[in-house]
């Protein structure tokens, strides 16, 4: 039996691509090396986590899309009663040209919409909503806000946060989450006001303020402004690598 590299076997196992021969070599290593077996178990969990994380994000993305489009519960019955007049466009060159132009324009806007949405969706990995860090006061229980934020219920998070923020208007982290919720709800003006305020401050979250300000333009498809903001993110920022990556996509 060939002598397989342990790491190679581990990788093949995680991708579900072990051959029969590799599988038997892998089983032997697992049986003889408990530390490796432990690492393989952690690797398995990591892949399981990545798969469920990916599904979770896709569902959230779809849900947001559904809310934005006001999806109907079921197909409208009125749909069936609509009468459609078919016009032979080949007999009408003008109609043909107009239809073609319409298709091109519509495709362009659909492309813009899909690309910016997926681009934003790729980068809107929000920080964990940390209640313990935020609620220094005993009076406020932000667990509902936390749960709502986790589930993508940004309007509920906003309302839960508002009373806390009225008492703690200088809590920058809470402000940041308020801005994120507003961004998710497409309230760009309010969101940008907050991100700009955080960006120009001296808190630990300054770089997140810069980053989210740029993301707000990505989401609104204002790619020129997004580029400008991303280019201003300095190499010291924790978001520098992502900003460069996003710039590459935009360029």
């Amino acid at each position, binding site marked *: 039996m060939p002598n397989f590299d342990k790491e190679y076997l581990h990788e093949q196992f995680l991708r579900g691509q072990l051959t029969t021969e590799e599988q038997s070599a892998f089983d032997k290593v697992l049986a003889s090396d408990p530390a490796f077996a432990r690492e393989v178990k952690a690797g398995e969990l990591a892949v399981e986590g990545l798969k469920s994380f990916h599904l979770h994000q896709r569902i959230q993305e779809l849900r947001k899309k559904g809310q934005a489009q006001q999806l109907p*519960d079921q197909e409208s019955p009125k749909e069936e009663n609509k009468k459609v007049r078919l016009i032979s466009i080949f007999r009408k060159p003008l109609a043909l040209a107009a239809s073609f132009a319409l298709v091109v324009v519509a495709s362009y806007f659909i492309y813009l919409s899909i690309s910016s949405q997926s681009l934003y969706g790729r980068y809107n990995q929000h920080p964990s909503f940390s209640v313990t860090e935020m609620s220094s006061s005993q009076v406020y229980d932000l667990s509902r806000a936390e749960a709502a934020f986790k589930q993508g219920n940004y309007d509920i998070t906003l309302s839960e946060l508002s009373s806390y923020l009225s008492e703690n208007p200088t809590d920058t982290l809470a402000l940041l989450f308020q801005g994120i919720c507003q961004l998710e709800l497409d309230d760009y003006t309010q969101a940008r006001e907050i991100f700009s305020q955080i960006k120009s401050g001296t808190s630990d979250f300054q770089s997140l303020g810069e980053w989210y300000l740029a993301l707000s333009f990505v989401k609104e498809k204002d790619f020129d402004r997004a580029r400008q903001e991303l280019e201003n993110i300095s190499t010291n920022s924790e978001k520098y690598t992502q900003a460069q990556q996003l710039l590459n996509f935009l360029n």
Partner: protein
Amino acid sequence: MEKKTPLRDDEILAGLCSNRKLEEDRALMEMYHTYFGLIKNHVLENSGSPEDAEDIFWVSLEVFWNNVKQEVFTLSSTIKTYFYSICKYKWLEELRRRRRKDDKNNPLEKDHQEIPADIDISGHMMEKEKHEWLWDKIRMLNQKCVDLLTLFYVDNESMNQIAKALDYSGGNAAKSAAYKCRKQLTKLIMEDPDFPS
């Protein structure tokens, strides 16, 4: 105008397991159009609000999708029966959670018994706590690592394709980065006291 033909159960399952975004989205939206009304009625009739119905629908859809993607998954009933059972179970779970919080009577005790006994949900339910525990670790990685690992382990993309997509100098550079990212993630998992020794 020709009306779109609804997808059959086997077509929905095939779409959900296709690993192709377009087909997955079509199957998921089919689920929405077909079953959201049903779930909404159930939640509204059992002390819930339209917002609760939305939450329960999407959470259950995530559970359903996770389950059908498991290699060992077999559907022993129709999608409607199975999915409806998940939703009822999730709504019941939520009501119980609220009852514990409010210490008030829960009107759904009776309803729980209406879940068909031959539908085994518990075995297929997403292990929510475990996943959230894992997601916390994943969120500690930088975004490029998450993208890289997702493309490699979830989408099964080749290293050369990943290198192009994520701007690495080549397949080997992407491979080496993936190795480091995986090591970083497994380390975070192993160092957690909740990781079984």
